[in-house]
């Protein structure tokens, strides 16, 4: 069996820098010279546009965004526009799916969803997946509130990119875009679901819960 998933906390790092870190690890993993890893981190404010992003999904000019300290980056991934920023826990998974014996992207996506749901419930928020919509949503009535977005790249069978979980981030930070090209869902966050019960240390507890949930699945023999 492959070695256990190596989980690292990289702190707050720029989107480009994190991309480079992923690229190196993907190359190492493909050459069998590196482990499967989960990089946990936070980005400074940045909007990334996937390949299928419609320019109409960006609702403010780049200049206006830059003036507010928000970068715009074109990402070599599927999907549409998304926002990353402080208070959002980003997880990049560099995993050799073939070596894990599960070369199946849909099962991989569903696995990420179920790990995130486990972590979110650990923090006291009911969460669910919605058939047909990749991501994790608050399990509550009304308009679906998206707590985590998921988007994955593959080079050969080695994955990169991963998920972004809104922990204490203010959902209105998504206002300049139509997230993931989906109107009709709301962006939520754990802090908002928890209300007064969120607590000061929510970010660090979320980090621990996510690390534990992924370790539980990926380390299992």
């Amino acid at each position, binding site marked *: 069996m492959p070695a256990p998933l190596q989980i690292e906390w990289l702190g707050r790092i720029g989107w480009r820098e994190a991309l480079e870190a992923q690229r190196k690890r993907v190359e190492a*993993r*493909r050459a*069998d010279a590196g482990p499967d890893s989960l990089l946990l981190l936070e980005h400074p404010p940045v909007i990334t546009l996937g*390949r*299928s992003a*419609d320019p*109409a999904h960006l*609702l403010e000019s780049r200049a206006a965004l830059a003036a507010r300290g928000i970068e715009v980056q074109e990402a*070599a*991934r*599927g*999907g549409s526009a998304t926002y990353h920023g402080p208070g959002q826990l980003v997880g990049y998974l560099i995993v*050799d799916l*073939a*070596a894990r*014996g*599960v*070369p*199946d*992207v*849909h*099962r*991989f*996506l*569903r696995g990420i969803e179920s790990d995130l749901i486990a972590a979110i419930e650990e923090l006291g928020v009911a969460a*669910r*997946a919605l*058939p*047909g*919509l*990749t991501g994790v949503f608050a399990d509550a009535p009304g*308009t*679906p509130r998206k707590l985590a977005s*998921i*988007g*994955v*790249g*593959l*080079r*050969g*069978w*080695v994955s990169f990119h991963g998920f972004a979980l809104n922990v204490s981030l203010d*959902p*209105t930070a*998504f*206002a300049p875009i*139509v997230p993931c*090209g*989906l*109107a*009709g*869902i*709301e*962006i939520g966050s754990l802090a908002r679901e928890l209300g007064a019960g969120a607590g000061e240390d929510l970010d660090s507890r979320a980090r621990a819960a996510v690390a534990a949930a992924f370790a539980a699945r990926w380390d299992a023999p």
Partner: protein
Amino acid sequence: MPVAVELPSLGESVVEGTVSRWLVKEGDHVEIDQPLVEVTTDKVDAEIPAPVAGLIQKILVPEGQTVAVGAPLVMIEADAGSKAPSKPAAAPAAAPAAAQPRGAEAPTPATPLARRLAEEAKVDLRKVTGTGAAGRVTKQDVEQAASGRSRPAAEPASPPAAGRPAYLGYSLQEGDRVVPMTPLRRLVAEHMVLSKRVSPHVGTVAEIDMSGVSRVRDAHKRGFEQDHGFGLSFLPFIVHATVRALREFPRLNASVLEDAIVEKKDIHIGIAVETEKGLVVPVARHADRLSLAGLAQAVEDLANRARTKKLSADELKGGSFTISNPGRFGNLYGFAIINQPQVGILRMGEIVKRPVVRTLEGEDAIVIRPIMHLALSYDHRAVDGAPANGFLHRIRELLEEAEFDL
């Protein structure tokens, strides 16, 4: 020797992928494992590496095109002596691990030891779930299968079924015909459920006298067909009137965001077309910049190419409002489901001669007129009843006035 690189199976329920970007061009020399092409499926971008070193001979699938798993993407003239590496990570073309029973012609990937053991223990390799590299069946898998502890391969944890409430279940009865959903059917189904979930639909219907449009159409029918090579239908008139009304009621040409409504500058009209493969909605872009003849041309062209499956992915995206024309007969009116993230959709009813009351020379009289019911479904989050009715009424006025330039 030329080698075809096929779209690998990226998972059990992945049946097709869209070529998003070629990273090489014809005539390039590539090394083993060099990324050739990026393929997009739902939420996943996969780079397909070269299985051999060689010369890119021919790219078979252009960017933007969606093809089925197994379809050849590119031909590589392999260098002498180059052969596929055995490293599984470099060869996603290997069969997925989550095995559906495989066809006889596709040998189950297995280690030689596992193969020998399976023969001895009379275990059918095709029914064993491989847990080894690239889904290969290992010795341990065979031992487990032999002792009956293995999960039967025919029922892997099927992700799409997970989370579906039990009351939707139905146990099959004898004589039932099970028709698996095509990917398009599944997409349509998911979209319909999503739309009904996120958007409170309200319906309203107008009765429209199509005499004026009929007259214009009859007057130009022959000339139009001679000039353009196809018949002039009613649909372009409806699209034209709708576009004009949308300019006056921008709230219907909109999307709902979390705390805001975006009224869009551009008007791109989706035209729902029923094809052999199912429902598709190609988009006439900038429909407000087109003349009636231009719209007729655009609608005809999109519908034709939808039926011959020659639409590009981009032509199915980005609509700001949709019109559905579900056919002539047995269709008085009905309410369509809104095509998200739009806020309104019109559905045309059949055009039938009906007795209606008109005032002729100061006297009420019953006259016979071609009448169409036009039904608007709108999203009550964005639009209230009065403006929705105002919009529909404006379309009616425009169609009844019938001042169209051809």
